């Protein structure tokens, strides 16, 4: 009789195993999109804000290498990745491919951040736990960052365009032209400005936004970006208007602005643009013309320090390291006052207000231990001078190639090997 009981118990436990019902284990590793779209609390939305800010940095090195290499600011020598010196420089028959990392990675990352911004907007919109001006604060941040990311992609693909409307992954908006793209980005910045004006900021940003981490500060950041876009559109009066609403100042520190910051904390990132000096193998060196074209006394030579030994690869060589980012936690500027001063100079020159343009240029020159500008005061000469200052002031911050392109001067960039090419734009990624 005892054994019957024991056997029955055995079978009972067995059947419990057999007929257990919990078969869906859910996602064990992370939250899901759905969990944010339900009814997100302020802390959830703040996680999306930080994820967005953090995500901006992921493919930064690819973007800066793309723009810096094609713009002949420098080379990335890599023993393991030849395409930095073949495809990007157009060696022999090599061309830019639509299936390679140099376009796919930065492009995808920018749109990933855009997607995160869209998710933030949607989650904030769905949330009943925050006030409407708090919602506006999230919208304003998300739209400003979206515009910035779209601009970076448009900088790469230029006349090949971008998609502006990507909110529905199953029904993506059309690829729009360069000018439509810029107009769309500008409109996005304007709407973000309106959001921020009506909104309040209840989220924390990193120290990269120090001084700009409230609604008023974010508006200044937003307008600084708008000034850059207006300059690309050659809307010179608008550049000046935007600058006046930004943190632009002829007297403030050149480095005042908004930065990507880096850290060693968990889940954080290190500055991918930092290579120690005199490395071998994996190096980022300045184009030889950086040192040969610089004016005597210009302290910006310190951005390209002399190496102990010349680095060379595949018929290219340089004896100067790129030394803009001097530690693994050094910040990378998103936009800073030195660029704004130069935009101010550019707009004034373009508006034929030469004294004001010259004044701004001299502020830059004097700031770098150069005497006042002494060349001819003509539009062309001042534009040349402005491009010189931009080249050295914004070295390896992602501008040279785009500046030369918008002034139709790509053919002035140096060719180092017979058979090299200077590309004017990247193809759209094959996935598009």
């Amino acid at each position, binding site marked *: 009789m005892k054994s*019957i009981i024991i056997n029955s118990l055995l079978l009972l436990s067995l059947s419990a195993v057999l007929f257990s019902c919990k078969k869906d284990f859910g996602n064990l590793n*992370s939250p899901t999109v759905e969990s944010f779209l339900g009814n997100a609390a302020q802390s959830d939305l703040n996680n999306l804000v930080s994820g967005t800010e953090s995500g901006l940095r992921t493919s930064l090195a690819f973007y800066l290498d793309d723009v810096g290499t094609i713009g002949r600011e420098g080379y990335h020598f890599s023993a393991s990745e030849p395409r930095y010196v073949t495809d990007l420089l157009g060696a*022999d028959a090599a061309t830019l491919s639509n299936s390679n990392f140099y376009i796919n990675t930065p492009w995808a990352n920018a749109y*990933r951040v855009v997607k995160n911004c869209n998710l933030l907007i949607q989650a904030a919109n769905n949330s009943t736990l925050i006030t409407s001006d708090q919602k506006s604060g999230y919208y304003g941040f998300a739209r400003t960052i979206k515009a910035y990311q779209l601009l970076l992609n448009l900088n790469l693909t230029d006349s090949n365009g971008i998609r502006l409307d990507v909110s529905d992954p199953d029904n993506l908006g059309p690829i729009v032209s360069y000018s439509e793209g810029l107009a769309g980005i500008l409109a996005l910045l304007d709407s973000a400005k309106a959001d921020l004006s009506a909104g309040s900021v209840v989220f924390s940003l990193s120290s990269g936004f120090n001084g700009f981490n409230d609604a008023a500060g974010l508006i200044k950041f937003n307008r600084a970006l708008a000034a850059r876009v207006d300059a690309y559109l050659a809307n010179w009066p608008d550049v000046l208007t935007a600058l006046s609403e930004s943190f632009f100042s002829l007297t403030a520190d050149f480095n005042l602005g908004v930065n990507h910051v880096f850290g060693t904390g968990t889940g954080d990132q290190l500055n991918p643009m930092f290579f120690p000096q005199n490395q071998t193998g994996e190096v980022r060196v300045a184009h030889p013309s950086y040192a040969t074209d610089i004016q005597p006394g210009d302290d910006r030579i310190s951005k390209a320090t002399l190496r102990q030994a010349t680095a060379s690869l*595949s018929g290219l060589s340089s004896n100067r390291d790129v030394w803009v980012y001097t530690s693994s936690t050094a910040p990378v500027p998103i936009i800073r006052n030195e660029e704004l001063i130069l935009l101010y100079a550019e707009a004034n020159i373009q508006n034929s207000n030469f004294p004001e343009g010259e004044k701004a240029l001299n502020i830059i020159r004097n700031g770098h231990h150069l005497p006042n500008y002494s060349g001819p005061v003509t539009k062309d000469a001042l534009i040349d001078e402005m491009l010189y200052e931009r080249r050295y002031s914004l070295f390896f911050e992602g501008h040279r190639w785009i500046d030369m392109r918008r002034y139709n001067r790509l053919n002035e960039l140096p060719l180092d090997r017979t058979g090299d090419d200077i590309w004017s734009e990247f193809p759209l990624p094959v996935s598009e």
Partner: protein
Amino acid sequence: MRKFKLLAALLLYIVMLPTVSSGQNRPVSGTVTELNGKPISGATVQVKGTTMGTVTDEAGKFKLSAPSNASIIISSTGFRSQTVKLEENASNLSLVLEEDVAKLDEIIITGLSTSVKRRNLANAVATISATELNGVAASQTFDGALNGKIPGAYINANTGAPGGGMSVKLRGVTSVYGNTQPLYVVDGVFVDNSATSAGLNVITGALAGGSVTSNQDNPSNRISDIRPEEIENVEILKGASAAAIYGSRAAGGVIIITTKKGRPGPTRITLSQDLGEIKASKLLGVRQFTAQRAASLSNDSATGVALSQEFLAAQSAGKIYDYEKEVFGNTGFARNTLLSMSGGNEKTTFYFSAAQKDEGGIVKNTGYRNSSLRFNAEHHVSDNVKLTISTNYINSGAGRSLTGNDNKGVSLGIALSSTPGFAELHPDKLGNFPNDPFASSNPLQTIALMRNNESVNRFISGLTLGATFQRSTKSTTKFVAQGGFDFYNLETNVLFPSVLQFQAVNKGTSIQGFTKNLNTNYILSLVNSLTVSDKLSLTTSAGLTQESGDYNNLLNVATQVISGQSNVDQAGALTATQFRTRFENDGAFIQEEASIMDAITLTGGVRFDRSSNNGDANKYYAYPKAGISWNLTRSGIFSREGIFDNFKVRAAYGEANNVPAYGSKFTSMVVSNIEGLPGSLINIQRGQPGIKPERQTEFEAGFDFSVLKGALSFEATFYDKHIFDFLMQSNLPSSSGFSTSWLNAGNLRNQGVELGLNARPVSSRTITWNTSLNFWINRSLVTKLTIPPTPQGSFGYILGTFQIEQGKSATQIIGLGGPGGSIVKWGDAEPKFQMNTYNEITFLDKWSFRFLLHLKAGGQNVNLTSLENDFGGTSADYDKVSNKLGVPDAIYRIMSIGSTAKEFVQNSGYLKLREIGLYYSIHKIPVSYVKGIRIGVSLTNFLTVTKYKSYDPEVSNFGAGFSSGVDVDPYPASKRADFHISMDF
């Protein structure tokens, strides 16, 4: 409740079953020999219908006691079983076994708890015996020992690093992004074969984007823990037609491993010792520099002058080095010790083994160690109840170094590729290594100071209970419960101290990984055998199954590590990642086998399965199977006195699934922090809530025959395998914010032919030659693709890439180089065909000579190893001029980048002498307690004939998945020579 009562009663009945009373016993003895009079040792002699039995000794003699009127069955591998009715006088019986090269009497497991003899089998099931697996030459790991031995398989080593890492594909690619690897079942336990990355991507950046792990980290896969020496037999179910009853995990085929069991009789103790040497199979050689060549490494004239002076100084000091040899030229010492003990009586048998191996690698400070304890026991509780237990504890470890693809110039091969022989990399008198001025890392320093170790503690245990609770003259019914678990802890220990050249930014990196995995499974079934008449018998089985898995991986990445320390708290910065997966599959099955006149066998069955990995976790999928085999000789259509001793035609059909990868239904948010602010960032993989499993149907048909009294047999099989709704990680327009999404993207097909010939061309008293020759061929075709052609995991059209495209082979490799800059096909990972031949020649009673040859004809790899060397200016043939432009070959190859991928898609066909061994046995030994000694010498992978221009044509640096055959500076393959001695006590 009624059900429980019924079952309870049933169990009680089993426990209380009376044992069959054994009547009066009497002694039986005899000798078992081959036709030519040679004694057969180790043959099983069993009294029919009982558990009584013994095995023959070295002289073929046996003794046992049996009831009068009993029959005895004598069986031995390679011979036909024989049943003998005992006469009055049953001493000194002379029993002769006929040879059976076709292994017609081999028992093949065809159901979850049923089996049939090969002669009645409807499928082409490959089996590998212990001798074939492990008796020719030494292999480091079990999966390595399978290589070249399975007709219909395509096996590749992902890396030559100690501890293995193999990819096994049966009958073509069965999945693009899903699991392509077979399910391994060891004594009824579904064992884990995952590969856990140690987080090397942190160091190499092989996969851009800052991920901690990637498919290029070349970890070992866990089936390598199993020791080949403990295996009795391996059975390979190559596709759904044979494996459907394994349901949702059978799509890649099933490899059923049976470990050694004891046999009744005196206790046998065997002690084996192997000693060996491991060396690189091939080195590529280095460029011979001259002052002018040294100068040409730079286009800067001043640097060029400095380089040529550096070269001349090194040359006059006699300091030109062959760094490839210094890095990959180490000779690893290998030792392997195995102590086994087996025996038992009629009620209980056991097998115990203790084994340890320790093998060095071709790179210093690398190697493999494996210690294993196994205890298998079988106990007859009564004549009706049998309990089988197998337990195995394994401790394995490997030091694997840093090789393969890398975007930071730190892996050994990449660093070598740009380091000329006149550079000085050796440490100074104080032991400090100089920086390599030509690369990001000094490979000698890396080898000396780094650590990349795996260590595993694993316990695998299986239990089978078979209880016959109903027995009559016509019917017996058995309850079979089988199950077990596989549990391991895996530690990965990666340390790159701060003094390393490339640790200038991170100042020391320590990556400590901890993984815990538990797999469990059970099968509860009822099996009824019903003899309807002497012309018809039926076997019915039905049951329930469950498999579950729980995997938890924690990786801690510490940087700014305090010198000499590896603990992750001894560091300035720490990042942790955790990854978990869980699944549970539940199933039920029923299977019916009918044997008509012992000539026609019909099989039909169906399994129902659900899996927590499917989009709909509660939906049951059905996997039917059916088979027919018709023995034409037994049914009298072919006379048995005619040409054919045996002629069988067969056909089988089955379906199986491959469940989606864990987590493919979710769009997850990954962590991405900034300055201590916790951040959530959307994953680049879009979730697919409606994801379905891949469905496979396979039809196979063939015929087998044997002639010349079983001395020659031939087997031919054709199969047609379709995969529906195959899973792909499709590339989404990345402007959606997502890069990939799982998708049921289309259908693909594999068709192939397998031919096998087994023969004993020579059989005399002094010499016997057994040979088998196999030929196999597979072709795949993507029959439907609902998305545009998709390039797959490689280096793009410029260097050659796989591409899934409707109407094309699934494994095609395409790239630039067509007319007008178009993209054309340059190759296919699929071999044209493969062949192998296994031979065993025994002569003069004492000698045995065995070898295995393997031919892979055609098939291409994407070879970037030689390209890296060209770029670094160090390829051995750099300055050779054999091209039409008259420039150095390396320059020519570099110039072709961007115009054609032809140079990089290379034929990887080969002929390999995989294993060769010569063994000598001594039976007459003056010392009485030693019963036998065997000594031998063997060579493994010693000879490879290939035109392929890298270390080894068998390579897959992108892991075990779909994209095999990508070659980027791997850990080179090795060859080995071993001396073996083994003693029986």
